[in-house]
């Protein structure tokens, strides 16, 4: 609860602050708090990823992008009301959607009765990998992970093509 309150405070600060450098630093703090939330929810794999990617690499990349532009926000050209209504509406719909969700960690939910418990029972005898997350990601859901790696590959190629000027010598 404390962590979520802090995240809410940071989000409001991100909206209020107009210096983009401060916004990047605030986003880094946001990611660290999000990683702490994941750790509290017993998801260390996700927490590790969030801390490394969200707080580490993406902060550096955003700073690199800031270096290429100006560090203060331009005043918006159009009124903010339509985006605010759209964002508020989607937020309200998401909250409405969570009302039907089962309580956190209940034993009789589909997550804990179906394929989840099958993974827990079968992954060690079949793969001898104690970390079920690794076994699921790399073996049972190998196709998904291959897709993710391909996404990273395509993203890297896309960024390189965007940023490298045409005709520039590759050194």
């Amino acid at each position, binding site marked *: 609860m404390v962590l979520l309150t802090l995240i809410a405070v940071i989000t409001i600060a991100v909206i209020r602050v107009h210096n983009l450098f401060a916004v990047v630093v605030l986003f880094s703090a946001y990611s660290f708090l999000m990683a702490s939330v994941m750790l509290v929810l017993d998801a*260390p794999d996700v927490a590790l990823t969030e801390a490394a990617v969200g707080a580490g*690499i993406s902060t*550096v990349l955003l700073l690199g992008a800031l270096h290429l532009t100006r560090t203060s926000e331009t005043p918006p050209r159009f009124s903010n009301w339509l985006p605010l209504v759209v964002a508020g509406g989607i937020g309200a719909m998401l909250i409405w959607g969570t009302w039907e969700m089962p309580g956190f960690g209940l034993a009789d939910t589909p997550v804990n009765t179906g394929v989840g418990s099958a993974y827990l029972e079968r992954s060690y005898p079949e793969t001898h*990998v104690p*970390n079920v997350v690794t076994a699921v990601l790399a073996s049972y859901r190998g196709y998904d992970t291959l897709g993710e790696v391909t996404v990273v590959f395509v993203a890297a190629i896309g960024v390189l093509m965007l940023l490298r000027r045409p005709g520039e010598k590759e050194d």
Partner: protein
Amino acid sequence: MRLDVVLRVISKLFIPFILIFALYVQFHGHYSPGGGFQAGVIFAAAIVLYAIIFGLDAAQRVMPPRLVEFMVPLGVLIFAGTGVASMILGAAYLDYDPLLPYAVDGQYWGILLVEFGVLVTVTGAMIAIFYAFAARGRT
């Protein structure tokens, strides 16, 4: 090189440990949280830190841009190649059972190989994107 001496000394001290920790997250991923993706990002973070503190040229002597860009598709090839290898050995794509005489060993080493592919691609992609930003800002 008019940077703070504290930053330079501390980062010099830390970078080996960051690299080792990345390898630990990679190869201990079977037992503890972590895997190729996280390890790749941590590894890339070490190189990025080196580039920030000691300059882009110094970092590019350690990790040449050609090597980094070669790593990006190489990891995908390792991953997909593992799948093709298991197909050649007579199982379904990305089914690691036949890679070694015992199915359990096959799974174990198959996961290790695949995670290594993830590591290579993620490290390459992150460093390549950082190089692209940094090189662009320089001119």
